[in-house]
């Protein structure tokens, strides 16, 4: 059971990848689908490794990420 869970508002994502390089557990990755603005948005690639540290949410310029912790 993962310790944390992220929820990404995909419409807000602009694919800057700041969250991807900030994640200490490498949970996030840029997905293959694009949103309505044409940006390939970030998805949770390894949700089981998430520890809910909220580093991705801290750095996100668009406030697109919300984090839950067990």
């Amino acid at each position, binding site marked *: 059971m993962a310790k944390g869970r992220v929820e990404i508002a995909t419409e807000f994502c602009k694919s800057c990848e700041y969250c991807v390089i900030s994640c200490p557990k490498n949970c996030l990755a840029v997905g293959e689908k694009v949103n309505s603005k044409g940006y390939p948005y970030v998805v949770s690639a390894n949700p089981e490794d998430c520890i809910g540290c909220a580093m991705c949410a801290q750095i996100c310029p668009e406030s697109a990420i*919300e984090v839950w912790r067990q």
Partner: protein
Amino acid sequence: MAEKKVYEKTLGVMPDVISGFCPGCMHGTVHKLVGEVVQELGMLDKLVRVEGVGCCGLGQQFVSHDVIIAAHGRACAVATGVKRCSPESLVYTYQGDGDLASIGLDETVSAANRGENFTVIFINNGIYGMTGGQMAPTTLIGMKATTAPFGRKVEEHGYPMHVCELLSQLKTPQFLVRTAVDTPQNVIKTRKYIKQAFQNQIDGKGFSLVEVVTSCPTNWGYTAKEALTFLREKMFEEFPLGVYRDKDKEEA
């Protein structure tokens, strides 16, 4: 075990508006931090934002509090009027380097010298963003801009201007700090500084300025990740981060 929400979007920004900033622009991060800090202080309904002209002007649809758009560079002068007429509101100016350091330097220095009781958030990315990448007073030596296509030269354009060092020559300012939002650690540090700057205003201590060194991937001509490397290697070398004035600590 029940899940606990550890991070949610602040009420300081509009819940359903996508910002007009470029991918990787750190304006959004600073908007978010201001919203979080003032929400924590419980004064979102009293918050007045005075903004300059430039990319910071894109924030007017993005934030959920009152906004006054000043003439180019005159945000500190307008904020002086707002704060003096309505001392109970929480006033901050939000300006870029072209606005605060170039066109509005006179207003900034005068407001700092008078010790006006408001907070200044200064975004320094070394270039004019919205107008198309012209050279700003804070552009680095050798850095290319559309008005300096061969790079900034000392003999023609002088050296980059350091606003925190300049204002630290004055006796009145309460709090001057230069910080960044390139890593989660720096974001948390910046939130602390912005909170202190607003707390100084609530306590009536006087002029506080938070300078945030950010990147401009679009006009620097990099991707967001390459711009981070440039920011850390070149910008931080020219603009060292740190607290330049904190009267609370000096007195203690």
